């Protein structure tokens, strides 16, 4: 019994170490001068250098500083807008009864599984027609619409677990539907909204495909788009690339450390219940 315990422990520990090693590798590579890590980040001597980060931040063709600013704008916009819209929709679908509600829910459910490739080409054409190509607004709109289905699904599930008595009370007191929503339901939804926002923010931040097809002006590119550009055609500067990777990961990492609870709750969503 005891022996097996130790065996399980050591296997779990070694898996965890294997899983952590790649991350340790890029941290080491990013923090050391490039010439030291040419043949592996594990060889001594170890010197500390912040030069890789400076180079990545101010790179001539893919400055990550600018990318960070664009990514922040897109991720914040594409989180706030759909969160509000989705909570309205979720209330409509969760509490009101109207003809076509069932099919509509099914449609939204199906959209959850839609691959982004399905909308790529027409979306590109449409954004071109709307003069929203190369614009962060266009990207925010695309991300907002794309994120809505799962947000609605998640929030609707949450609303249906709230007691209806409170709404009743509000309505007896003469509040209309919108007021009931804004002053009764919305505050009660805050925990769910936190999960939805954290998850959507991370997804938008991490997204590459939509940004790739909608934005190609070097000044407007978001962070993830600039990473492939940091890699030279023939020569790969791993120090630079690792530093870039860490800068791009920074925000999701902060989310992971400080908002883990909401993130996990969002992931679990309807899966476990």
């Amino acid at each position, binding site marked *: 019994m005891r022996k097996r315990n130790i065996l399980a422990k050591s296997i779990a520990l070694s898996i965890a170490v294997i899983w952590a090693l790649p991350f340790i590798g890029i941290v080491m590579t990013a923090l050391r001068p490039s010439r030291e890590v040419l043949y592996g980040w594990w060889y001594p001597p170890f010197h500390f250098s912040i030069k890789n980060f400076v180079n990545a931040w101010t790179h001539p063709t893919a400055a990550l500083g600018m990318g960070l600013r664009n990514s922040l704008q897109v991720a914040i916009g594409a989180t706030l807008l759909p969160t509000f819209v989705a909570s309205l929709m979720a209330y409509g679908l969760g509490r009101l009864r109207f003809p076509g509600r069932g099919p509509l829910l099914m449609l939204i459910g199906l959209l959850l599984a*839609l691959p982004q490739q399905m909308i790529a080409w*027409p979306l*590109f054409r449409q954004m071109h027609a709307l003069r929203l190509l190369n614009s962060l607004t266009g990207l925010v709109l695309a991300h907002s619409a794309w994120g809505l289905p799962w947000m609605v699904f998640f929030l609707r599930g949450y609303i249906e677990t709230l007691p209806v008595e409170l709404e009743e009370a509000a309505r007896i007191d003469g509040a209309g539907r919108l007021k009931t929503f804004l002053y009764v339901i919305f505050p009660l939804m805050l925990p769910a909204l936190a999960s939805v926002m954290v998850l959507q923010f991370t997804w938008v931040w991490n997204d590459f495909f939509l940004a790739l097809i909608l934005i190609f002006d070097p000044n407007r590119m978001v962070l993830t788009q600039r990473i492939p550009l940091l890699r030279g055609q023939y020569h790969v500067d791993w120090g630079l690339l690792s530093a870039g990777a860490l800068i791009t990961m920074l925000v999701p990492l902060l989310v992971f450390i400080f908002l883990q609870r909401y993130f996990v709750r969002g992931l679990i969503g309807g899966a476990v219940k």
Partner: protein
Amino acid sequence: MRSSPRAEPKGTREGKSRKGLPLLFWRLPRRGRREEWLAALGFLFLGLVLIRFFVIWPSIRTLWFSLFDAKGFAGPSNFVALFRDREILDFSRFLRREPPWGALFHNLVWIFVHLPFTVGLGLILAVVFSKIKSWWVGIARGAIYLGIVTPLIVGGVIIRFLFDKHAGMVPQILGALGAPIPWSAGWVAYPETALLALVIGSIWLWTGFSMVLHSAGLSTIDRELYEAAQIDGASELAQFRYITLPLLRPVTLVVAAMTFLWELKIFDIVYVATMGGPGGASNVLALEMYFAAFRELDPYRASAIATLITLFSLPVGYWFARRRLRR
């Protein structure tokens, strides 16, 4: 979802009051059906407009485009062409020679290797970590879990880094052990190893997802079941087989479904690590679709590929939506 007009709090004790409540609610403030319909429209309007313009309409256009070619209506000929296309399916090479086997086969390899591995490993890790009480468990879980929040584009960079000829750990270690050339050189540069490198790397990135969901599932299982089993003398393996596994089944199914969808649309990792190369040996459907649409400017072929990915995804999506709407 149609059985009751209102969603009620779960629980059995309030059975009676639950029945009475909707009636009361319906009678008191009811101002006619039309009013409720209009109100619903008001709540849904903004979202429906966004989804209609940026999701549904483009999807319909893609579906429509997939049935045309430059000359006009083409029926299913684009799809027939896909199945004859060596970039998509290369029957003459598949499993007989080294890749490229075609993008669809590569996605299938991904599904057959990556899916059981991530789902199974995540499940096992969740169970093992739940039994260990040591100071490092939190850190260990964190390290595995980190893959979910890592942007996939960064994940791709790290995978390439891991399998790089000089700076990469894997070829260096294998080289020190005396492995022959593709295995001890840059994996992503050789057709024999490029796809494998990406699949292994994506297992590294995605196991955390399976682990987190299974851990959450574990915490909902009643401890008393295990205590009872222990009293009856069931071994730990038997407890896993007859309590944990069946009770986690719904979670495992969801994880498998979401992993399947993830594998079908895999793109970022391949784009940044190999660009589908060398010579198409690690190409996937989503990347092929991107090339068709935005490099070769052939929207018809691109739409057919996109529709193909969707055809694979939708059954899973339907199952998933049904399941979540049932409640």
